[in-house]
């Protein structure tokens, strides 16, 4: 750095020295190390993409996920073709075999042209302003197209998968945040103070860990008063899953705190006259932050799997709410496997998102300690 901006950065740092928050370098080191891990970096981009899809679900989905239409029941996915630069899909007509009643689709040569920023169904963007603008869709507003095929009621699977992401991914996130807060609070207290509190909290952790997860979810989820509307059920299921999830994190945090308590620079901070809160938040937590973040990213996938399992058992979210678990529950039929396999696409999405988060979390954990060799 040239001389004068070195001075200038010195001023900047000193100015907010009072706050003492500015420790960019730790993150810069971690970020540099993380970027070297190509797979983890790509996974991070994918995860970010998934959450963008979850947030802008209405805008991204070409059709409303809930409008049934009898003419397009169990329509197989349409392949996208390009006529010059104009993308289009071929229309299908539904004929039903009189004996077996199986829907058979005959490809016609009529084309449905698609375009970006097409007009579609009305919705409130981010709950603020009314619009009917969608990322892409058929040119004429009434037309239909099914890139991911359609389900039993003729609803567009692509839109349903996109809306499903909203519930499943957000449930994963909120659940993890809940269990992180619990994990840090309890793990921290038992790690920092030790003695009786530590003993009690560890016994509680052991008790919860020894309860077999799925049966307990079963019991808790079935204990839900089921006349609640879907979003209330959604929040309570998230709470249930995180009730069990925090124990692993609590153990990681406790271990870190115990190790940290003996560190020389922590003793030095105490001797510098720092209050207990300052010792924890200014000296101990920053060096643990990287490990906590890594543990959190690895916890989200298990939350997503938990949601799908609960929905499969018919306990988590119920139709008419839409989540990947609910979509998979509907697909869980032999009749679907044999003649509507595209209904398993939500399963593929679950696998992709869980994989991406695992690799992302793994990369974070390796990069977590920039000072380790």
């Amino acid at each position: 750095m040239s001389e004068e901006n070195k001075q200038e950065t010195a001023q900047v740092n000193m100015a907010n020295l009072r706050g003492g928050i500015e420790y960019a370098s730790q993150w810069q080191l971690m970020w540099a190390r993380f970027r070297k891990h190509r797979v983890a970096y790509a996974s991070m981009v994918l995860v970010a993409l998934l959450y963008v899809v979850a947030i802008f679900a209405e805008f991204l989905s070409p059709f409303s996920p809930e409008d049934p239409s009898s003419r397009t029941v169990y329509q197989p996915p349409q392949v996208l073709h390009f006529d010059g630069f104009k993308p289009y899909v071929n229309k299908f007509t539904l004929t039903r075999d009189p004996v077996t009643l199986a829907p058979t689709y005959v490809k016609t040569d009529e084309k449905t042209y698609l375009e970006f920023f097409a007009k579609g169904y009305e919705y409130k963007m981010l709950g603020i302003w009314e619009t009917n603008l969608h990322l892409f869709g058929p040119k004429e507003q009434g037309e239909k197209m099914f890139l991911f095929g359609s389900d039993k009621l003729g609803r567009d699977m692509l839109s349903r998968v996109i809306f499903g992401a909203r519930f499943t991914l957000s449930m994963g996130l909120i659940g993890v945040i809940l269990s992180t807060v619990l994990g840090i609070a309890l793990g921290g207290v038992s790690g920092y103070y030790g003695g009786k509190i530590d003993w009690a909290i560890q016994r509680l952790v052991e008790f919860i860990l020894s309860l077999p997860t799925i049966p307990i979810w079963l019991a808790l989820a079935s204990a839900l008063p089921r006349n609640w509307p879907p979003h209330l059920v959604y929040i309570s299921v998230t709470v249930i899953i995180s009730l069990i999830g925090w124990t692993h994190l609590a153990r990681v945090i406790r271990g870190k705190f115990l190790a940290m308590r003996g560190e020389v620079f922590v003793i030095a901070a105490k001797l510098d006259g720092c209050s207990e809160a300052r010792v924890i938040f200014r000296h101990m937590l920053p060096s643990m932050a990287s490990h906590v973040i890594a543990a959190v990213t690895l916890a989200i996938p298990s939350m997503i799997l938990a949601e799908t399992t609960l929905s499969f058992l018919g306990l988590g979210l119920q139709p008419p709410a839409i989540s990947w678990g609910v979509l998979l529950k509907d697909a869980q039929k032999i009749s679907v496997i044999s003649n509507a396999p595209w209904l398993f696409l939500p399963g593929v999405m679950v696998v992709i998102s869980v994989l991406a988060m695992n690799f992302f979390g793994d990369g974070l954990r390796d990069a977590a300690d920039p000072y380790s060799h």
Partner: protein
Amino acid sequence: MLNYIFKRMLSAIPFMFMVSLTVFILIQLPPGDFVDSYAAAAASSGETISPEKMADLRHQFGLDRHILIQYFYWIGGIVTGNFGYSFEWQSPVKDLVGERIGLTLILSVAAMLFTWALALPIGVYSAVKRYSIGDYFFTFVGFIGLAVPNFLLALVMMFIASKYYNQDVTGLFSPEFQSADWSLARVYDLMHHLWIPMIIMGAASSAGLIRILRANLIDQLYMPYVVTARSKGLSEVKLLIKYPVRIALNPFVSSIGWILPNLVSGAVIISIVLNLPTVGPMLYQSLMSQDIYLSGTILLVVCLLTVVGTLLSDILLVILDPRIRLEQ
């Protein structure tokens, strides 16, 4: 060692008591009781049950008494070996659970052995050959095992097995062996049916185990005692097996503590889909229909399995690692 085990057993008693209380209350939480769900189930298949018959049934099952009285009746019974009556089957819970626990254990242990057989070699390989193509490949496969929801995997595998290999998928035994007593042919038939559930249950937990073994082994590979061993003239392979792998095995062994409960509870889902006669489907049904004594007993047994599992892994750890045994 013995008094340690005895002490652990003693501390397990209050623990199990607390578990049984929690479990019992959990089961009673949903609105309505067994008779309601029985009436609902009957009604949904067209048969209707009059209100006074329902009151009759409630009296019969003793459901009109206060929760705590029911609990102490149950716990009192357990102490004397009577686990109570299942409402639905009208037969003692002990017999119902007795037969199925055996198969659950067989399935879980088989899945655990499969997990270890898979995780040990892969874990060692990907640690020694860090960041090689093999390492990335196995990590990827491991994560796939972790990522695919097991009920989906179960259904698809079952469909393929029955459609293309016309494998009988209606249970752990083909019909003629179902109630036959144990014979070699029956064991072979069991093996023939066991491989699908074993793979599914093993896939997820082996991924976790590979990650742990790989991380521990990497730490041990560059320890000074490895350099000492090399300076003594030991060959790389002998050196690898005797020192780093041996020490990295300790957490691997202590994984029994958390693998057993996961497998048992994981088995619930897979048994439902694959229709295996384990405690899984019975637990799910009894929870749904609030057959309290039956589901309470199963949950209690599963928790007992967990406690035993953790104790087993602690003991194994002590045997394997002298540092814990002798040093404070």
